[in-house]
Structure formats: C-alpha cells, structure tokens
C-alpha cells in the first residue's frame, strides 16, 4: 500500500477547514484511506539518523496516509483533496479537457530502434503553470510515487518532465549505442557518455535500482530535441539542460515504457493532477506522438467512459435498498458522475480518466458501498446450508497428533524449506536421489529445497535443545514434497509422521513401541496377512548398519525405523544415540 506524506496545514487549507487528528482519521477510514502516522520531517530524521542531524529540519506536521494500491489519483495532495472534497460534496468533480495549442503542436517521433527495448512513448504539455515550492515538491513526489507503484520501479513506465521553453521540438525518441549517447545529466556539471553514467550510478543509492532495466542491452533509449539536446535517457535520468524549476511555466511531459496502457494512465494522472495550477485550470495541451509505423496519436487521452449499471444490481450486491437516484448520488460522491436514465432503474456512470481502477461493474458497486458507508450496511447471515466435512488427511493427522502427545512425545513445527545439505549430505544421500523440489531464487541456503523428509527438522530441533534433560522425544506430522511428473505441477505433497528418540541409549525398542502404538491406533494388526503390518530388516545410509528396518503395512512400504548412523548424528551436531521413525500416513486413510 503506497503511503503519501502531506503537510497537515497545507491539506487543511486546501480542504477549506481544519480537523482534529481523530476527525481526520475517521474521514480517512470512511473513504478507505488510513491515517498511518502523524509526524514531522524533524521526527523522521531524528528517528533515522539521530537528534543531531535533525536539528535544522522542519517541524511542520506531516500526515502519512496509506492509499489503496489501485488509486493512483490519490497519490498526491492535489488528488487527495479533490477526492475528499468531492466525497464530502463540497466541490463537483472537475472536467479535464485536452486542448489543441494555438501554435504548432509538440511532436514526439518514435523511431523503430526503440522496439526492442522500450517501444512506447506518450507526451503532453502543461501550459502556463504556476508552481510554488510546495506545488513543485508535490509534482516531483507524485512522479516518484507513480514510478514506485504503477510504473513498477520504472520497468513498465518512466516519466520525464522538462522545461519546454529550453527546448525546441519536434522531439525524437530513439535508441542508440550507449557509447554514442553523451549529455550532461541532471545534477551533474559535465557531460558523460551513457556507459560512464551507468558506472557512476552504480553507487547512487537512488538510481542504482533502475540500471538493470537497460544495462546489458545493446541500445539505450534516449530522447532528443530538434537541436540534439538530450531530454532524457529513460528510465534512468533526465538531461540537465531541460530541468524544471519552481519558475518553469511550460512543461513537456513524456512517458516511455513497455506497457502502453500504463504509460497512458500515468500521463493522464500527472496532467489531471497538476493542470489545476495551469492558467486554464484542468486543461492540458495535446502532444502528437508518431509511431514507427507512421501512425500518429494525440495524447493525453483523457478518455471519459460511460458505463451502465442497473440500480438493483448494486442493491443486490451490497445488500441495501436504495433508490436509483440515491445510488447515483452516492456514486457521484466517489468521483463517478452518475445519473439515472432509461427506465429509471439504469444508472449511467461516467468514468473519468483519473479512475483507471474502474474496470468492471463490481468496482462501481464497491464505490457505491463505500459512499453508502460499509458500516451502515445491514449484516445478515447467508442462508447457505451446508454440512461440514474435514479433509480426511487432516482429520487423520489431528487424531494422530493427540495420541502421539499422549504417548509422551512432544510436537514440533519445523520449516518446510531447508538446505540441500539437510536432506542429502547430512543423511548420507546424494541430492539427486532425494527427488527434491529446488527453489530458483532463495535469499539464503536455508531455502534451497522443499524438505523430502521430516527427520532433518527434528534433528535440528534436538540440536537447538541439547541442554534439555534426556531423553528427548519429539514428533511432527506434516507435509514433505517430492517431484512427481504425474501431477499437474510436477510435484506432490506427502503427509509424513516422524518421531525421534534421543538418549544415552538408542532406544530402538521405544521407537518400535511407538510404531506398534500407531498401528494399534490405525487399526492395523501385526502380521503380514489381512492388511497387517510388519517390519523387515533393511538398510539406509542414514541408519546404523543392521539397525534399520523397513515398515510394510497393508502390503506396501510406508517408511523406515531404526538407529541413526553415527555420521548422521555427528553431522547434525548431536552426541547421543538416536533412533527415528518416519512413515507416510497417506496409505492409512
């Protein structure tokens, strides 16, 4: 969930009234926001870097507000205020207009070289804007918030904003070899080639996270004006030449990316939010983008879409009984201008360009419910009559767990993920023999594979509890995973029961006795006939030679029991003899 940080006083000024913290918190809750924290710049710095560094920082109260991840229109003060004012019916939702310039339209020409790296670009112009320091900061902050969220850390879309008065169109969006790109980037005093820049930015805490997007690509995307001035090298950095300041009056905005839809949404959001400060409020000057195929489009789209929803559908989905008129009013409060049309049951809803999150009637239903107030909805129990059933495997597990504890064994809960070493080397097995599932992107060796046996987890638990008085009697009933090409995903869980006895003597008879008890509980008689169970001498690398037996029940092998091999004991950093039992309980269902 993105968090937007706004100055409280500025917010109240824009809202036209003040709130207590509690009142504002309440308002947020109702609207689906969350007042996460009330703080100040000073507090933040002192918390992160200590009081000394915070000495000169601002005391201005900041509200940190959590915004739903799909509401890009609420990612800045301007959007938040507009949303809340409309919600409280203090203003009507503004209508955003795209206008053609009096003079020549700004053009951005995309060359075909971009196709392989970052094929899409959109652009627009904010004309005669009036910034203040706060507005400027908000403008920069919104770009950053968009970059982090919908733009997926600039991978899908990257935004560049430029002082149009320092440039001359038409602009060219192309891709070049890194060594052929040379310009003075933002906040630097001299020119660098793209190769040099990539090296410099490796140590830049902010920019290093974006380098991977184009690094190692033969061509880097770049935008030039007609004089060969570099506007930006998306998605890394803008040129210093066209940088915007508080005094900038005309802004050229370009968004490049790999996702056309998202690039259009991002552009719409920026221009709808900040056209408020243009001389002609809420109007945006169009820009023309020419694609490599020669087709030309005008942006921003600022598309208004009409949706029809029947009033009774909304009532039925929410569980309320409101008149269509009231529902239309509720939706209008959610920035969705609505009116009742047709037979009086149809509601026509206008989806503004700011509400890209509305993609289905259910989104409209939700907004109606929010405006109605979730907590005003009558709670009712669904009349869904059903008979409960347990998942048989879990039912058996629950029954066995209680009896294992009653038999004096203590239950442990170990991780399903572990290292290769745990399930192979330490048990004297080769990893290929385990048929284990391997994880491709583990952060540590602890998560290399899914366990194929419960034994390592139990032995590690003993190792962590060596100080406990002996004997240690532990068990776990949980799932292990084995590769299996007969399943749709190629792997299968098996429910295992594992128990270990750790003492000065191996205690095979105790583990064997436990097996007898388990079989008694499972109603499996001893003996080979009539679906009984029997243990037969066997061997396994984890077991001491001659001290291992395989368990056969109902005609199939279900597991092994025995005294662990001294090597296994040592590898798990244990010192005492230990006997163990591990069976698959699936066959006993």
């Amino acid at each position: 969930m993105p968090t937007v940080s706004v100055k409280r006083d500025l917010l109240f000024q824009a809202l036209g009234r003040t709130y207590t913290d509690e009142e504002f918190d309440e308002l947020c809750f109702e609207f689906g926001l969350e007042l996460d924290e009330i703080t100040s710049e000073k507090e933040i710095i002192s918390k992160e870097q200590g009081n000394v560094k915070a000495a000169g920082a601002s005391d201005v109260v900041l509200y940190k507000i959590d915004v739903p991840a799909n509401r890009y229109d609420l990612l800045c003060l301007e959007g938040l205020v507009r949303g809340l004012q409309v919600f409280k019916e203090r203003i009507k939702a503004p209508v955003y207009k795209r206008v053609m310039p009096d003079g020549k339209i700004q053009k951005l020409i995309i060359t075909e070289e971009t196709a392989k790296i970052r094929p899409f670009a959109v652009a627009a112009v904010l004309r005669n804007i009036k910034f203040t320091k706060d507005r400027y900061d908000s403008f920069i902050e919104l770009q950053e918030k968009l970059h982090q969220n919908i733009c997926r850390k600039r991978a899908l879309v990257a935004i560049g904003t430029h002082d149009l008065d320092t440039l001359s169109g038409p602009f060219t969006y192309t891709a070049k070899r890194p060594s052929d790109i040379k310009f003075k980037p933002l906040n630097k005093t001299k020119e660098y080639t793209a190769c040099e820049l990539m090296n410099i930015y490796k140590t830049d805490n902010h920019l290093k996270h974006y380098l991977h997007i184009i690094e190692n690509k033969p061509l880097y995307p770049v935008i030039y004006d007609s004089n060969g001035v570099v506007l930006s090298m998306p998605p890394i950095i803008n040129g210093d030449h066209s940088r915007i300041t508080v005094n900038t009056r005309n802004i050229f905005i370009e968004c490049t990316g790999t996702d056309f839809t998202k690039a259009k949404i991002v552009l719409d959001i920026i221009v709808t939010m900040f056209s408020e400060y243009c001389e002609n409020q809420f109007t945006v000057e169009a820009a023309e983008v020419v694609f490599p195929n020669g087709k030309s489009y005008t942006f921003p789209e600022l598309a208004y879409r009409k949706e029809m929803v029947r009033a009774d559908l909304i009532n039925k989905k929410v569980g309320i009984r409101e008149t269509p008129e009231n529902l239309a009013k509720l939706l209008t409060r959610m920035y969705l201008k609505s009116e009742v049309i047709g037979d009086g049951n149809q509601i026509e809803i206008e989806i503004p360009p700011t509400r890209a999150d509305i993609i289905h009637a259910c989104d409209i239903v939700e907004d109606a419910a929010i405006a109605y107030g979730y907590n005003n909805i009558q709670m009712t129990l669904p009349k869904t009559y059903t008979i409960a059933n347990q998942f048989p495997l879990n039912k058996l597990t629950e029954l066995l767990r209680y009896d294992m504890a009653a038999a004096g064994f203590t239950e442990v809960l170990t991780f399903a993920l572990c290292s290769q070493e745990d399930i192979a080397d330490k048990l004297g097995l080769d990893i290929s023999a385990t048929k284990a599932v391997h994880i491709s992107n583990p952060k540590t060796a602890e998560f290399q594979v899914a366990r194929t046996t419960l034994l390592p987890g139990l032995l590690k638990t003993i190792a962590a509890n060596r100080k406990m008085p002996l004997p240690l009697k532990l068990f776990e009933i949980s799932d292990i995973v084995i590769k299996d090409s007969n399943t749709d995903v190629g792997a299968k869980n098996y429910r295992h029961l594992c128990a270990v006895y750790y003492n000065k003597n191996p205690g095979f008879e105790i583990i064997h006795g436990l097996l007898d008890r388990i079989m008694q509980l499972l109603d499996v008689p001893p003996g080979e006939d009539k679906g009984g169970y029997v243990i037969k001498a066997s061997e396994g690398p984890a077991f001491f030679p001659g001290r291992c037996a395989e368990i056969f029940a109902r005609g199939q092998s279900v597991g092994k029991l025995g005294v662990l091999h001294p090597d296994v004991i040592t590898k798990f950093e244990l010192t005492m003899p230990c006997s163990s039992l591990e069976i698959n309980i699936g066959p006993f269902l």
Partner: protein
Amino acid sequence: MEPGWRWELSAVHHLRLRRHTQDDDTLSPALRLDTFKMAMHSPDSGSGGSGPGQDTLSTLEAAMADGPVAELLLRRLEASDGGLDSAELAAELGMEHQAVVGAVKSLQALGEVIEAELRSTKRWELTAEGEEIAREGSHEARVFRSIPPEGLAQSELMRLPSGKVGFSKAMSNKWIRVDKSAADGPRVFRVVDSMEDEVQRRLQLVQGGQAEKLGEKERSELRKRKLLAEVTLKTYWVSKGSAFSTSISKQETELSPEMISSGSWRDRPFKPYNFLAHGVLPDSGHLHPLLKVRSQFRQIFLEMGFTEMPTDNFIESSFWNFDALFQPQQHPARDQHDTFFLRDPAEALQLPMDYVQRVKRTHSQGGYGSQGYKYTWKLDEARKNLLRTHTTSASARALYRLAQKKPFTPVKYFSIDRVFRNETLDATHLAEFHQIEGVVADHGLTLGHLMGILREFFTKLGITQLRFKPAYNPYTEPSMEVFSYHQGLKKWVEVGNSGVFRPEMLLPMGLPENVSVIAWGLSLERPTMIKYGINNIRDLVGHKVDVPHVKCKDQEPQPLGESKEHQQWEENCKEEAGGGPASASCQLTVLEGKSGLYFSSLDSSIDILQKRAQELIENINESRQKDHALMTNFRNSLKTKVSDLTEKLEERIYQIYNDHNKIIQEKLQEFTQKMAKISHLETELKQVCHSVETVYKDLCLQPESLRLRRGPDHSRGKSPPRPSDSQPPDVFVSSVAETTSQATASEEQTHRDGEC
C-alpha cells in the same frame, strides 16, 4: 523451604509487583521494587549464622540431628516460667549455640509446640588473638618474661613470636630498656622486677562475660588492637507454644501401607506439607502451541458448517496462484523478491487449457463485463512453478472444481495451511507461515452477508465489536478490512481482511453469473503470538524453538477474545492485514512497532524505564520461582535417591544377615554334632577309665599279671584320657564361638551403617 534469596527494593516510585498480592507476607521469593535500597539477607549476617534467610534450610537436617537437644530444651522450657534464651541455654548445657538453634528450628517445624522469637543482642567477644592473650598473656608481658636478669640480645628478642609487638609495647610501658653499647649488639634488660599484665586481665574479664566492667575507652583501645570485637548475636527467645508437650515423637513424613494395615497412623503425628512447594510435573508429551490454535480455528469453521479444502500442495503454478485470481502478470507480488519460484520442476506440466484461454482473454482484453488489464498475457509466465504464496490458490482450485459440477450447489469452504514468501526475515516475518481462509459461494451473496458471517466468525473468537474499512485487494471487489474495537487502546485495530471475489476470477471458471463468492483471511501466527505473548516468531516456528518453551506454552488455548489476550491481539493489530484473504503475512508486521520500542532512544521516558524495571523484576521473580521449583525438585529427587539408597543398603544388609545366618547355622550344627561326639567319647573314655581302673586295681593285687598285660593295652591305642588329649575339640569350640561373635559384631556394624 525458602532460602535467603529474597530481595527487597522499596518505595520511591511505588512500583508494585502485579503478582505479589498473596505472597507479600509469605516466604515467597518474590521481589519488591519498594525502595532504591537493596538489602540482601544473607545467612552470614550474624555470628550465630542464624539470619532469617537460613530459617528453614536447616530444618531438615536439624530435625534429624537435634533429637536429644530438642528434648533437653523442652524439659528446660517446661521447668521455666516464661521462656528461655537460646544462647543462655547453650551456655548452661555447655554446647554450641548453633546446636540449640537447630533444635529450636526442628521444634518450630513441628507446629505449635514452641514459639520462638528472634532476638539480636550485641556483645563483646575476643578475637582469636585476644583469646591467645587472655590465655598466655599480652605480647609485652611475654617479652618481659622472656628476658632473663642478665638481659637478652635485641636481635634474639625480635625472633620471638611476640617480639616485635611486645618489644615496643613493653618499651612504652617502661618495663624494659635497651643497652646499645653492649659488645655484641644492642641488649635488652628488665627495668622493673615485676609488672601487672593489664591487657590480659581486661581480656579475661571480657571472656568471663563481664565486658561491661571495662570503660568505653579501654574497650575501644582493645578493639583497635583487634583483640576485641563487638558481635551481634542472634538468639531465640523460646516460649511454650499452644501445643506444648515435652514428649515429642518424631513426625512421620508420609503415610505408608504398613501404617494403614496396622492402623498406626491413628497415633502418629505427621509432618505438615509445604504447600508452597511446586508439584512434580507429570511426564507427558505436548502439542505445539501454534498447532493447538490451528485446531481451535478448525473447530470454529467446522462448527459453522465449513468444509475443509485440500491444501496439500505446497507447489503451485503461477497460473493457479496468480492468473486464475485475476492478478496481472506484472503485479509486484509476482516479483522474484516476493515469491519463491522453482528451478526444478520449473514449469507446470498441465494446465486446464480451455480455462487458461478464458483467463488469458480476461486479463488481456477483458470480457465478462470487464475492461481487463490490457496487456500481453504470456502462457510461459503462467506456467512458472512456485511455492504458493497464499492458500487462495487452493480456494481457486476448489472453486474451479465446484464450477465444473452442474448444477451449482452452494458451498462453505475453509483451509488453514502453510504459505511461502521470499521475504527478508525478521522478528515478525518468516519465509513460511500459516494462512486461515474462509470462503462461501452461493447465489446472491451480498456485502451484508460477508459482514454477517464475519461477525459470527469473530464472535466465536470472542471478538464482538467489528467495523469495516474499504480496502483494495487485487482479486476481491468490494474489499473490506475488518477492524475490532480495542478497549485498552480505545481505538480500532485490524483483525482480518475480506472481500467478494471479482467476477473476472469467477466467471472464467464457469460459475453461474448470479453466484457470488465471499471470502476472508487472516494469519495463524499473529493471534498465536499474541495469545502466548511471543515477540519473536522464531520462538514459535522452526527448529530453533525451545522445546521447554513449547511445553510451558501449551496450556489449553482459550477463546481468543475472552481473555486479555484479545486486547493484546488488537493492540498489535494496528497494521494492515495485507492483500485480502491472500496476504495474511502482512499481519505479522504489526509486532514490529512493539519490538521497535526497545531500541528507540526517544521513548526512554520514566514510564518506559519503570515499565522495564517492572519487567526486569518480573523476569527475576520468574526465574527465582523456577529456581525454587528446581530446588524443590532437587530436594524431592534427593529424598527419593536417599531413600532408594537406604533401601538398597538395607537390602544388602539383610542379604549379609542371611549369609551370616546360614554360616552360623551350619557352624552351630557342626558344633552340636561335635559336642555330641565329644560327650560320646567322654562316656567311652569314662568306660575305658573305669576298666583301666579295674585292671589297675587287679594289677596291684596281682603285680605280675599286670606287667604282662600292659603292652597289648598300649598298642590298642586306648590310652587313658588326659587333658592335653582333648585339645582338638577344644580348639574347635573356641573357633566357632569366635566366628559367632565376629558375625554378631559385623551385624552390629552394618546395622549402624544402615542407620547412618
């Protein structure tokens, strides 16, 4: 049995222990933060060594060893009116004071036989050096005496034990003088003929208990010379108790089968139990706390008629985990940073292809009334295998199966199982945790229904005051976070996440259009951590968990909301529960704030310090209680060990007795046999004697015939009995007697051993 480990801290800030209400005046080891001054009552605080701390430690031994003293004490007490002083009694009886104290303790332990009041008196006592001087005279006197009239070389004098100290004192007393002009070095001569050893006299006075006869100045001078010391003597003023009796019999500790059969229990006194001691925990297995809470949640769902979904597949394809849920392929959750993908098997082998096509169309182009996400949906991306990030993938499979069954039947499903996230681990985040999920699918379900069923569910957890906040989850719309009012914090905190599954998820599965599916979810770990007061999730899950921790935390889970844990739960539920039924993991983040407190320098206000001090003290008290339990257990096991050992010893003694008995029996038998033989021989001898006598008489009468018959008599070996001839039987008899007496002695010996 409370050893002297009680700390007392008293009262500037009036911090009180929460738990010491009933322990206040008992001997409990509880700490009190009542003062900044800490006074530790250690057993060695007085010369008698009978500080309050030792009170009961010695009882056991004392009761065993002080029988005779206790009896004496009781007799004296009976004769006295009022009472006795333990020190005086010791002096009268001529025994160590400690022995009397021991007797007092053992009598106290019997109940109301006596009353003993601890008194402390100060008195003067000689130091070891002082005693020596009282006995042998002061150093100066000894020096004086050692000088013969002709004087002594100073060097020689200095070699005497009292030389150095005595010399200077004797000089200052002007008893002696030094002649430095002597030929072989300085020589010391007496100045006076005799002297009075005042120091010795004074010390003897003190030794005689007449220290008060000395002046303050004299005492302090002697104290400076380290000859005298003021000691605090702790004595008991013993008086008759309400159950006073001189005939105390040793109390029985336990009822035995013999006592029951003989009825002797009626007449025997029994030692009182110490009910403050801990019991011996039963030897049993334990269930894991997290899984106990899991069982509790399962129970709730089953009570509400929910059927358990199969969730036994940790490995899932991206398709079921994300795509089927209408979660776009560029969604951040599908990042390598958040999800464990598989290298082997890297891709799902089978997907339901016609369904996949419908999902693809919905994502990339829309449909079912949706605009879709309008991006290029890739099958390869959907095939990628991963460790499921939520159990909602299992719900998706269950709903898909449900959609294939015609006609549609309403269902209520639940699941509680492991999910996996490639997260950075910390105190509240693990790579795997458990997710609880509930799903209802029926015609015409509304948001009101979702709220209604949530109310029922949380009521069963004991959470009754609910409120709902609009939220965003990728696959539910509308979505609502569930908040509960926290009485303690006076605010609303989040307890779960919920929503109505999007039509874009349900319709491609083939579910009828008017069927709605409502769902909610929460994590299992968070309520469990809150319930058991665990701050670090690693203390709950994984192999590093303390098994004793598991044991002590495995009390029966209470309904979460009925106890104060509920409040705590909510207190910790400040943050979001995460993305819908899916991302219960985020719920774990709530505890971060709590642990952060400990490191924030800003928060070190007095309140926090006090709280920490309180916590510290509670910890100390807790560990003391543990120590106490340990001691109790140790004592118990010691007792069992000792009694076992005694039993074994006894057995061995009896064995030896048996062996000895056998030998004795044998020897005795032999002995009687020999005796019979001897008496037989005796009669024979008598007869022979008799005949010899007759023969002799005959011979005397007929001397010739005697001389003739003598030879053959001799050769027949029937010589007359002589004392020396009876030697062998005699030796035999005495050796038997010896063996017998030896056996008796060894019997006695072992008996004594046994008693010891």
